[in-house]
């Protein structure tokens, strides 16, 4: 009886040990099959024509590098309880899904006047689900360009519309940009005063296109309240660009060689080959002379 209990005890111990071993190996299995944790970022922007865009980026991190997740469906909704579903779009090869909000689409605002956007990815067998929220307040930005005392000035006004009334936006930074070939160049920023206005002196040494045209953008850049809201215009405030054609002159590295090279080479070649020509003519004349001599000798025999 005691022996039986003893044996049972040992068997139980063995079984527990076995279970423990098996379970840890199982968990290591499941560790290998653990899902990827993605990252979902949301950005709101409104361009100069008041076109509103929501851009979501779905990526995951591996070896400290961000790798995009293309072809995944991201759903976008608005409202404090995400009650208004806006769209479900697929991410492109960079993991970006862009949704253009309709102009006449009115979005529900919460009590602070913000739109509550929520985006989400439902996940699949290998990727976890993730959601991201963004609260944005609508703002209107106006830009007026003028030249005061030959100083190029930009006058900016920003206001929000609350209950039909315009409320100026103050204590916010607006950055002025000029788009360049690969990116946009920040030219300076201004701080909106209590009236929601600011003046910016635009520098006069920024190169424009051939006629001096520049696109000037004033933007709330990554503003925590307003997102990215910009206003842009084209103005002739840049320095005109000269037509840069380095290859058109005569140089060692261009298509046309320097004149002195052509002249020297021609003179040398003509001189030398001229002499060769002369020598060859002499040889021909020797042959002619030999023929004449032969004729003379033949005539002499007759």
């Amino acid at each position, binding site marked *: 009886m005691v022996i039986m209990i003893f044996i049972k005890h040992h068997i139980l111990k063995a079984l527990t040990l076995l279970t423990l071993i098996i379970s840890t190996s199982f968990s290591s299995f499941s560790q290998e099959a653990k899902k990827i944790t993605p990252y979902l970022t949301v950005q709101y922007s409104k361009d100069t024509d008041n076109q509103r865009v929501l851009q979501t980026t779905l990526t995951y991190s591996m070896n400290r590098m961000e790798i995009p997740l293309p072809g995944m469906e991201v759903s976008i909704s608005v409202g404090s309880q995400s009650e208004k579903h806006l769209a479900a779009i697929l991410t492109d090869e960079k993991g970006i899904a862009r949704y253009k909000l309709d102009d006449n689409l009115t979005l529900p605002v919460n009590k602070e006047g913000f739109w509550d956007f929520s985006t989400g990815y439902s996940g699949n067998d290998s990727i976890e689900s993730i959601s991201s929220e963004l609260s944005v307040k609508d703002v209107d930005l106006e830009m007026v360009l003028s030249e005061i005392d030959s100083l190029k000035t930009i006058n900016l006004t920003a206001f929000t519309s609350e209950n039909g009334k315009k409320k100026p936006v103050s204590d916010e930074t607006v950055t002025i940009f000029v788009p360049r070939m690969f990116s946009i160049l920040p030219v300076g920023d201004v701080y909106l005063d209590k009236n929601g206005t600011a003046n910016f002196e635009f520098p006069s040494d920024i190169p424009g296109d051939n006629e001096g045209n520049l696109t000037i953008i004033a933007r709330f850049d990554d503003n925590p309240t307003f997102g990215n809201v910009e206003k842009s215009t084209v103005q002739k405030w840049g320095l005109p660009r000269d037509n840069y054609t380095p290859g058109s002159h005569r140089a060692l590295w261009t298509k046309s060689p320097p004149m002195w090279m052509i002249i020297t080479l021609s003179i040398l070649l003509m001189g030398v*080959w001229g002499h060769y020509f002369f*020598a060859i003519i002499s040889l021909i004349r020797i042959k002619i002379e*030999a023929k004449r001599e032969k004729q003379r000798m033949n005539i002499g025999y007759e």
Partner: protein
Amino acid sequence: MEADKKLLKDLTPELEKTSIKWYLTFFLFFVLFVAGIYGLILQIEKGHIVTGMRDNVVWGFYIVNFIFFMGLSYSGALISGVLHLFHTGWRKPVIRMAELITIISLIIGPFFIFFCIGRLDRLYFLFIHPRIQSPITWDVIAICTDLVGCFIYLYLSFVEDFAILRDYADLNVAPWKKKLYRILSLGYTGTDIQKKLLSRARMIMAAMVIAIAIIVYSVLAWIFGVTLQPGWHSTIFGPYFVIAAVFSGTGLLIILMWIFRKIYHLEEYITKRHFVNVGVLLMIIAAFYGYFTFSDYLTKWYGSIKMDSILIDKLFSDYYSLFIFANYIGILLPCIIIAFPRFRSIRNITIAAIIAILALWVNRYIIVIPTLETPFLPIQDTRPDWIKYTPTWIEWALTVAGVSVFAMLFMLVSKIAPIISISEMQEKDKSEILK
């Protein structure tokens, strides 16, 4: 044309019969040539990776050989051209050889450039898309001009000899050779008008050949001189290369004089006097060459410009023995041998010439390769063949093949035309008549 019977008897036997030794020697050279061609085929098939050239030392043996062979062509320009213009008497037995050296080395030289070119199938682009701002284009134009000019000059000197051979009734050669002499002699019969035409043409071409030879070699020097590389960007490269070329040409002439004198039993015509005269020329040129070399390296060594100092350090460490051989032994030994009458013997002078030629080849090597191994940005690499240039068997084989082709061509020409100009030998120069 009539010719001195004795001259004919001495100088024509080689045209009539060929000894077994000739065939064997020719065959030996031919085998070496074939080995080189095999290497070339391998190179064309597998790409230039089979050579020792890599991204830093992009120019190796082939360019060195190119410069060397082009330099040899100077013997014709200097000895033949200058001495002809100055009516120097003792030049007569040797000018034919000098002119032949010129032509043959001018033909071989460009082939080494072809070996160095990565895309041989596009070689003709040099002629249909040339850029005259490039020193290589100048080189192409100059070499073509030089080849044509030297050819005309050589032919002008052959015309009389062909006429003599054509008229030499006892000449026991194959009928095709006789026909060849007849065609190539252009019916020359030695009339006054013909003589005048010929001598005037020769005078003009002699002057041209000298001028062209100087231009060709200067252009070659400027391929290096106009670049920014330390060691190459030297203002004296033009004249320096010309002097070195004359040096090598003269040395080769002495060697060939010795060889043909031995083989064709021309002891009567090529005497010690000729050896001494050409030897003295060699010594003078050696002195000039030594002066240029010293001037170049002194300027580099004395100044503190970093890239020059790095190059000098490299020359005195990795290339020490080669440097000493090329620039000390190669200059001093020939000078000593020829300067002292006690040492002047035909054999010694020939040895001096051999040393001079080898030293000049090494001199070209240490001009081209150490500079490429010390670029402005340091070579930071682990592959040993990227750091230091080591020629492969293919490059050696092609070098030997080049020398073989030179020998073979010379041997072939000596079977068609006399190696000493008969017409020259019997012609009495104005200076000798007045004596």
